[in-house]
């Protein structure tokens, strides 16, 4: 992708991020003034969007031919199991990523 387009994307993402961070301080000023629907969505959206992001991560995973998404399935089981066991985000992320890299570079070539 062109450098200009990449820089433009960073500007857009940065501006929208600033908007979400400054809006409460500039517009609402107190909890009462924030519209009810906004407060509700601000509370439930993050959880739902994280669900969407996980689907997004697997959007190009092919399950109909070899290796039938096996590296993804194995790494994901390990990430979740490690997390349920140790409740340590870094351990799960690092462990799962290294395992996945080993699997696709060395096992399911």
């Amino acid at each position, binding site marked *: 992708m062109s450098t200009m387009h990449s820089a433009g994307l960073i500007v857009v993402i940065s501006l929208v991020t600033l908007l979400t*961070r400054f809006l409460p301080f500039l517009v609402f000023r107190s909890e009462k003034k924030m519209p009810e629907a906004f407060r509700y969505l601000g509370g439930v959206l993050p959880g739902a969007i994280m669900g969407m992001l996980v689907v997004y991560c697997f959007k190009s995973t092919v399950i109909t031919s070899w290796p039938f998404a096996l590296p993804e399935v194995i790494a994901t089981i390990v990430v979740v199991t490690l997390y349920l066991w140790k409740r340590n985000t870094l351990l799960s992320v690092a462990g799962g990523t290294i395992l996945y890299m080993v699997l696709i570079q060395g096992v399911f070539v």
Partner: protein
Amino acid sequence: MKNKSDFGKAFFQAFPRTIPVMAGYLVLGFGFGLLLQSKGYNFLWAVLMSVAIYGGSMQFIAVDLLSNGASFLAAGIMTLMIHARHLFYGLSMIGKYRGTGKGKPYLIYGLTDETYSLVCTGDVPEDVNRGAYYLWITLLNQCYWVAGSALGGIFGQIVKINTTGVDYAMTALFIVILTENLLKKESRIPALAGVFVSFVCLLIFGAEKFLIPSMLGISFVLMLLRPVLYKEGGGESYEHNA
């Protein structure tokens, strides 16, 4: 800031409390820098993004948006959805950040999940300038994040390892956060709704076009679920699930 010694004293109060965040930000930032480098953007891009955007999940997604040349509209909507939670953080910080002086815009700009949790939980020691204390927490955290992402980018440039599959770091991070959400009663239904709606949209619209329909669909379904979710978790509980 009243004077220099105030600022210095606040540092010694703030620094120890940021140590847990230091580990997390250095490692995740490193992963981000490495991933970005693997897509052909050197560490300067990583630093630029960690300064200008400064939001973990969003920056990982941004790597994808950049390398696939997403449209500005899609990137804007995506950012709005992922960062909707900031509306909340901001709301609960309005009182806390009142009267924090000239540094206040920076405090607002640097309010990430981790900074939010530090500022929310720790009581500011009596004899320390509040504004200076918050400023140090925010600044130190961002320094860790910027340093981690720069190191990741530089490491990727110097050490020629085969980075195929390093993309999975983003997947793993999101899976951990999703698991956390599924374990919490109040965020379980929204999380499941998010997975379900986007999966259906993926099947209908395909990998390239499913994001915007998913985000619209998720908002719609959440609005429909509003009476149920309010009854279940109680509206108030959503305000503290940072």
